[in-house]
């Protein structure tokens, strides 16, 4: 019987892990071919590795508790993407805007005839007016190409979302056009509805506004309402005015308003 010395242990151990070079592999294989003790030791090392790998599973309740506790700490993260200090400063303003928007939007949504998109267009007006964030000046001439909801196209990543939302926010035809050309928007809504929205009885993005606000009660007034295809799923993209230049953008699934992404801070 041969002696298993530390160097052999190291070679066998590294061999198990595929961390030997060709010469070492040849040496190990030659040794294993002629040395039963080496083969026995290899089995022992392999069994030790397998035993370590078979760690007891975590209790499901522990996982839930740990995840919940960790998420609680990000309600006010140390390094937030959104400037929470600024957000707090604007709280009074945005809270007032939310209340005003809700009061005005509900009767419009319920009483508005025609398409649901018309409800969205009308509902955005007071919300936007209440916003303090300096949306682009209204273009009374209706400079937008269309009065319907804007589609941001296929978005796969948060970077895509930021870029598309920033571009949309730069365009003067956003809410202001819809506000000033409300009637026109209403009439065109049926034909200009974005892909993925017109089917299955889905309604405008404002229908998902409560779900978006449930994500973060500090969201400001509605500043962007668009559609997109988020990672292959038809989605609404809602933006809420932030303090100064930023807009907090939330992505929600068409049909059910499931949160897909956000809030993501976008400069405009």
């Amino acid at each position: 019987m041969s002696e298993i010395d530390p160097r052999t242990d190291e070679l066998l151990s590294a061999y198990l892990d595929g961390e030997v070079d060709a010469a070492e592999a040849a040496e190990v294989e030659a040794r294993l071919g002629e040395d039963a003790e080496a083969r026995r030791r290899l089995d022992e090392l392999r069994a030790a590795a397998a035993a370590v790998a078979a760690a007891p599973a975590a209790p499901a309740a522990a996982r839930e508790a740990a995840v919940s506790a960790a998420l609680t700490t990000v309600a006010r993260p140390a390094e937030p993407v959104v400037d929470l200090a600024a957000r707090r400063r604007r709280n009074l303003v945005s809270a007032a805007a939310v209340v005003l928007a809700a009061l005005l939007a509900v009767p419009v949504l319920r009483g508005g005839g025609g398409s649901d998109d018309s409800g969205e267009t009308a509902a955005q007006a007071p919300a936007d007016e209440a916003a303090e964030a300096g949306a682009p000046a209204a273009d009374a001439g209706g400079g937008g190409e269309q009065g319907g909801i804007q589609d941001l196209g296929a978005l796969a990543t948060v970077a895509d979302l930021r870029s598309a939302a920033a571009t949309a926010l730069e365009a003067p035809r956003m809410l202001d056009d819809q506000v000033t050309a409300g009637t026109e928007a209403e009439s065109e809504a049926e034909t200009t509805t974005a892909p993925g929205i017109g089917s299955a009885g889905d309604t405008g993005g404002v229908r998902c506004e409560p779900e978006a606000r449930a994500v973060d009660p500090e969201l400001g007034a509605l500043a962007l309402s668009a559609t997109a295809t988020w990672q292959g799923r038809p989605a609404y993209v809602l933006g809420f005015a932030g303090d100064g230049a930023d807009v907090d953008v939330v992505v929600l699934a068409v049909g059910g308003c499931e949160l897909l992404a956000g809030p993501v801070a976008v400069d405009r």
Partner: protein
Amino acid sequence: MPELDDRTLVEAAQAGDRAALDALLRRHYDRIHAVCRRMTGNEADALDAAQEALLAVVRGLPRFDGRSAFSTWCYRVATNTSLDELRRRRRRPEPGLPDHEPPPAGSRVDDAVAARVDVDAALAELAPEFRAAVVLRDLCGLDYAEIGEVLGIPPGTVRSRIARGRAALADRLAGNQGTGTARPTPTT
């Protein structure tokens, strides 16, 4: 909702997407806990360390640069929080430690025996630095270069630590006591 990869979830979570963060934490908790379990050797300390690790992941996420896999970074965090937990434990009484009863003398290691043997006790015989190398390899499946990165040691040192740690573990599990193998301690 389709299963998103870690990279996508990390990017979304870094941008403030709580749903993505939730999914990430949920996805990696079990493995983080397993690392902590093997590193600390008992469930109570493992749960504490895993909780700390999750908090550290959340706090550190804005600085995670994606150069390593997210899972590898989680293992690093879990290893460090476990080592912290072990240091704290050394400073206080240890009523919660498991009994480190040796396995039946002369037993041979096979899968069935390994399942019954107290692996925690065997791992507890290893210095934490050796334990970490073995755990990162055998539990997490990291290669030597990755382990070296996590532990801040050269791959050659990783290789020797894994070999010595695993050999001591094999001796213990196989009941090969008295082979002259002292508890391995880091020399490099």
